[in-house]
Structure formats: structure tokens, C-alpha cells
């Protein structure tokens, strides 16, 4: 099959496209995203006891809409 080992080139093209588009569709630079992440964590930490190590915050354009997805595991409420 040549250049890309045994894989057909259309699969290579599709994989590359998917990776490229994930980067292209990111609306914020990594540093801005990190700033936002820090601030979100700070605000929520005032009220909730959260599992800092398992937080996932992503912003992505999906079909026809842009979504900010934040997964923040809560351990308990702050009193």
C-alpha cells in the first residue's frame, strides 16, 4: 500500500482532519483557557468542596453550536 504502511490513505486523511479540526475549533488559546479554568475553580471552591484533580473543562464547536463543558466532581458542600 506504499507511503503510510498498510493503512489506506483516506483513513490517514480522515484521522489527520479530525485532529486538525479539534485544534482549529478551539475558540480560546491554551493560556486563556487555563486562566478561565483557574477562575472557575476559585469561584466554585468558595461554595463547594471539589475534587481538583479530576476537573475537565473544554470549549468546543460541535454541529451548529459551541459548548463549554465543565466536569467538576463535588465531594461536599462548604459550610
Amino acid at each position, binding site marked *: 500500500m506504499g507511503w503510510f504502511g498498510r493503512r*489506506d*490513505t*483516506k*483513513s490517514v*486523511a*480522515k484521522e*489527520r*482532519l*479530525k485532529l*486538525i*479540526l479539534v485544534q*482549529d*475549533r478551539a475558540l480560546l488559546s491554551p493560556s486563556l483557557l487555563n486562566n478561565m479554568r483557574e477562575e472557575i475553580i476559585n469561584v466554585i471552591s468558595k461554595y463547594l468542596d471539589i475534587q481538583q484533580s479530576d476537573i475537565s473543562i473544554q470549549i468546543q*464547536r*460541535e*454541529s*451548529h453550536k459551541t459548548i463549554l463543558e465543565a466536569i467538576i466532581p463535588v465531594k461536599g458542600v462548604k459550610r
Partner: protein
Amino acid sequence: MGRVVVITSGKGGVGKTTVTANVGASLAKLGKKVVVVDMDIGLRNLDVVMGLENRVVYNIMDIIEGRCKISQALVREKHLTNFFLLPASQMHTKEDVKIESVDEIISIIKESFDYVLLDSPAGIENGFRSAASPASEALIIVTPDVSSVRDADRVIGLLENSGIEGISLIINRYDPLLVHKKKMLDANDIVDVLSLDLIGLIPEDKGVIDSENRGEVLSIIAKTPAVQAFENVAKRMEGEDVPFMKLDIERKGLFSIFRRK
């Protein structure tokens, strides 16, 4: 009141102008009154593709700047009486175009037509923005390659942010033989990546260059698989539920046409 559709791609050379001429012709063949507008100010080509370059007197900038009436700038196609071209200016640059003026002219023109197709220039700058601004629908043209699909994704994002409602996808220059060999992205791959509705799958057709050499629109003078695909786009735009042509190479009839010449 007519539908205003921008035909755009981000990347150049994927066939926006050819698709504009042929989809426009196909809609006209369905009896619709159609005008195709060349929005590539400074680099006009739609007149040449349609073989109307010798009939151009005025252009869209002449209308905007008050040198002629709209009806004086419209050029009627040679064979179809309900198919018109509004040429671009060759003297101006894209920076000379005010988006509000284009919006105003197109909003007047659409009163007299069923379809206004706006042939956008490549890129995402001023020329693209003034072509997209008056439109409420968009046809995104891609060829089955990584760079074209990537640029299309960028354009789709911009159009969605600007509030355009119906965005559909046309895959142009599709090569069923390469797809069969898994050496070309297939239609499902592209639809999957861009998550748009597919409205057209146009097979590669050498006749396009041949007819453009002579200044004829292929869909008006010939009956080839690509022409049928353009006709299907027009029917789907009209709301008809047309199944996609079988372009797999096992279908001997189609295959033999692709191999011809």
C-alpha cells in the same frame, strides 16, 4: 420574494464558480427565475465561465455607485430566458465594496427572482463577508481533500456565527475510482467530519473544462453524470427528496463514462 444563497468554500479552486453556473442553470431548467451574482470583485470569472464576457456592459459596482439601473446590468444567458448574470467589477477591489450597499442591492433584486446565487470569492476576508452578508442560506463547496475540508470548516464556523440558517454541503470533483481504492475521502467521511447536510455529490467530469473552454455551461448543453448531479442539487433545493446517485465503480454504466477519453 426569492431565496438568497451564497456559494462559498474558504479555499480557492474547488469549483465555486462552476457550481454556481451549473446549479443556477439547473434551477433555471426547472423553470425558476435565477440570477447568479459574481461577488469576486476585481477577479471576475463567472462571465467567462458562462461565455457572456462580450455581453457585459455594466456591473454590480455600477449599480451601487449609481451609474446604471439594476436591469441594465443584468446579462441574460444565451440559451435560457430565465437565467441571468450580474457581473462583478474588474476595476474595483474588494475593499471598495460596502457591505450595506450590497445588502441593499440584493434585497431589491431578490424581489424579482426565485433564486439569487452569490458566487463568493475565496478567503474569509472582506470579499467573503460581503458575499455572505445578504444571504440567508449557504452552499459550502469542498473537494475531497484535507485542506479543502479544513478551510470549509472554518467558513462554516463563520457563517454559523453570522446567523445564516440553512447551510448545506456540496462535494465537488468526486472520483469514484479513487474512493473505491480508498485513496480519497468518501462522502460519509466528509459529512461526518463537517456535520452538515449533504445536498450534492458531483463526480469529476472532464466535460466541465471542455464546455468552459467554449463558454458554455455544461448543464445547459450536455447530459453527463455531473450534469445529473447538478440537477439533483437543484431538485433538493426545491425540496424534492432525490436519492444520491450510485457512484460506486461496480455500476458499469457510470464507470465507463468516467473512463472515457
